[in-house]
Each structure stands twice: as C-alpha cells, then as structure tokens.
C-alpha cells in the first residue's frame, strides 16, 4: 500500500471519528443536564487524550522522522544532475537503471521549482525543491523499469504546468 493510501485511510478514519463525536453532541444537545458531571467527563477524556498524544503520538512522530530523505547514504549511486529553468528541465543523464540507487543533484538556474518524480501510473514517488544557489540531493531507487516523469511541483510562472521531463 502506498504512503498516499495509508495517509488517506488514516486521515479518513480520524476525521470520521471526530464527525461521529460532533454528530453525537448534536443529537444529544436537546437534553439538559447539569454542566458539572459533563465537565468531569470531558476532563477525563481530555486526560486520556493528552496521555495518548504524549505517550503514543509523540514517540511515533519522533520515530517517523527516522524515515527522512535528508541523510540517505547510497553506495555507488548513479548520479543525475537536474536543473530547472522557466519552463523546462535539463537532465545530464537520459537513462538510469532500475533497482539501483540514483542520486539526483537538483538545482535551479532562475526561480524556485519543485522536482517531482512520477511513476508510470502517475503516482508521485519522491520530490525535492529546486532552488537557485543550492543543490538538493535526493536519493531514490526506482523499483521497476519504465518511463518516469519529472513534474514541476512549485509554482514558477505562467507555463509551470507544462514543465515536464521524462526519465526512461
């Protein structure tokens, strides 16, 4: 399952849970009860929520940061230098081998661009920003052979949407 699908399913579940709570509050609002017991119940839920967020959510967030693309080290990667221009990409290598790490050295010759790698199914598989004066190093392993596309993901002017390159 892709990261996108996992993210969407988890988000949907959490949003539906909140919607269920809001609907329950709406359905029961016509009943009048003293506020004190309602408040005590809310404080109990708040305490449980707080400790869940601190003891489960926070360590999970810290742990997830380990899966960052900044410190990826690959032995003998294929290197591709990519430069963004208004409104095209210049890649110094036209073909890479699937299954082996590729290090993209991404920069821009003019304004800020976004270097987004899309697979044949149109799914975004990795990205980094392309900035003038900086080289962002993105290491990615293409799992399957095919023609991948580079789409610009940062608004860079009128023809931003046409800034597409191919990596066979």
């Amino acid at each position, binding site marked *: 399952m*892709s*990261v*996108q*699908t996992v*993210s*969407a399913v*988890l*988000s949907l579940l*959490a*949003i539906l849970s*909140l*919607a269920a709570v*809001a609907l329950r*509050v709406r359905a*029961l*609002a*016509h*009943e*009048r*009860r003293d*506020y004190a017991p*309602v408040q005590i*119940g*809310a404080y109990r839920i*708040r305490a449980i929520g*707080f400790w869940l*967020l601190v003891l489960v*959510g*926070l360590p999970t*967030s*810290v742990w*997830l*940061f380990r*899966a960052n*693309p*900044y410190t990826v080290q690959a032995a003998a990667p294929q290197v591709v230098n990519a430069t963004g221009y208004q409104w095209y990409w210049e890649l110094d290598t036209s073909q890479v081998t699937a299954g082996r790490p590729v290090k993209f050295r991404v920069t821009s010759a003019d304004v*800020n661009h*976004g270097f*987004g790698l*899309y697979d044949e199914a*149109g*799914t*975004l598989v*990795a*990205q980094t*920003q392309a*900035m*003038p*004066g*900086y080289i*962002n*190093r993105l290491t990615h392993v293409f799992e399957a052979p095919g023609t991948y596309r580079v*789409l610009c*993901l*940062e*608004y860079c002017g*009128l023809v*931003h*949407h*046409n800034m597409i390159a191919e990596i066979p």
Partner: protein
Amino acid sequence: MIGVGFLIWCLELARGIIATYGGLGRGLGWHALFGGSTQDVPPPTVVAATMVTIVTTLALIAGAVVLVMSLINLAFPAVEIDPLLAKNLIYFFGHTFINATIYMAVTAVYEILPRVTGRPWKTTKVFLAAWTLSTTMVLTIFPHHLLMDFAMPVWALAIGQVFSFVNSFPVLIVTGLGALAILHRSGIRWDMVSTLLLISVFGWMAGVVPAVVDATVAVNLVMDNTMWVPGHFHFYLLLGLLPMIFAFMIYLARGEDATPRGGDLTAIIYLIFGLGLVTMFLVGGWASVPRRWAEHLPEWQIWDQIASVMAAGVIALTGAFVAMFLARIPALLREG
C-alpha cells in the same frame, strides 16, 4: 498597505491589553499560570487576542523585512538575496499570519457558546498553558513548509515535524473538546449560529488531521505541493474559520441576542458543499495531482469537475450568509 493596517491593529490591541492587564505576559495569564495568582485573570478572548497580537506582529515584521529585501534587490540587483533565507522569512510570515486568523476567530466560539448554552468558558490553568503552548508552537513550526528544502538544517526540519504534531494538542483537547463539552446535553435548540459554531469546531479539529499527516516528512516526500495541501488548509479555513466568522456576523445582526431562532438548514447545506470541496482536494492529493497547475491532465479532471460544483455551492451560501448580515445593518444602525 494591508500589512501596515494589520500592524496598527496589532499595536492597538497590544496597547489595550497592556493598559488593562499590565503586560502581554499577564494578557497570556502567566501570573496565574506560573505565579498562582487569582487576580486579574484574563478571560479567554483576551488570552487569544494577546497570542494573536504577539505572533501577528512578529509575522508582519518578517514579511516587511523580506519585502524590503526584495525591493532593494529589484533596484540594485547586485545586492543578492539568499533564496533559502527569503523562503524562511516568507513562510514565517505566511504560516504565522494565516494561523493567527483562526486563533482570533475562535474567540467567537469562546464568546457566543457560553451565551447560547448558559455555561461559562472559564480561564483555567490548562487553558492558559494551552495558549502559551500555541503561541510558542505557531512561531516555531513554520519549517514544516520547508520539509522538501533539503538544504535546511535537519534539526529545523525535525522541529517542523514533531512540533506540528504537538501543536495539535491545544486545538484538539482544549478548545475543541471544551466547545463540545459546553454544547453536550446543554438543552439548546439548534439554530444557525449554534450549528455554524459546531461546524467550525469540527472543521478546525478535523482539519488538523491531514495537516499533521502532511507535516510528517515521510508523507511530505510524496504529498507536498499536491492537492492534499489545499485540502487540509481548506478544511480548517472553509469549515473552521469561515463558520466562526459567519456565526459571529449573524450573532451581531441579531443584535447580540443569543436566543435560538429560525432553522439551520443553510448551515448544514454549507457543510455538505464544504465537505465535498475539501474531500475532492484531499482525493486529488491522494491521486498525486499537483497543486497550482493551470491545466490539468484528463485523468485528474473528474475531481476538478465535482469540486467546481461544490465550490459553486460554497460561494452561493457564503453570499447568503453575507447577505443576511448586510440586510440587518440598516435596522441595526436605526436601533443605534
């Protein structure tokens, strides 16, 4: 001009808070939170206004700095700007400013819900701690906009991810839960104002979810600058901020009378159209559709077409809420 206007507004807020409470720290209730004082504890709206004053002023300063830098660069191209510094300043400004709008609008919830339900919203130590945390977090989490700028220091990006998660605590378990508790079994009859406020609380809490998901680096790597981004911020702006403002406008138009009146069908239809629109954004993000593309590929256009219908509904109902407010202005002026 708009920035200067907001800065003057912030300075006036700061002046009022300092004159009444003796300082911005006291406006945040630090004397009660850290000193245990029970004197001059500010009400929730003052605490929120203090937070908004602090963060908006700092945001405007950052925005002004990058604007001046850009003007100098325009006049003297030899004076170059570091692009990464410029991005940091722009995101510090933009992120903080837009967040502050919600933190200001939520005062409608703090002020109106107690009047509708007859249940007070008290300034507790937990409430004060939550707003101090929000003040700190809103100022420090802006690097989550720069997670794909690999040239940023890694510690700053770690802060961007982890603090974004922490920033959800006050929204979910203090303001959100507090509002739901005040409404729960309160004996109210739903009308336009109370339903809009319930929608706003749901919208803010639910919008936090895709926001925190996107602020996770591993997710951001494949979802940043896709439609997921407008999906999450439309969730808490379209279904959080705007219903707060609409509720406040209608409450004002009713002469600040919180007695329930009329139905709430318009608010519910607004919710349906709004949910449809943000869902299409989020589905677009799931499908890797990039944001800010003037022309979409054919396979993406089904989401656009549904979203367009939903957006038309949102715009029409926004017009209806504004019309309700404007229609009452002559009568309000006559009544003085």
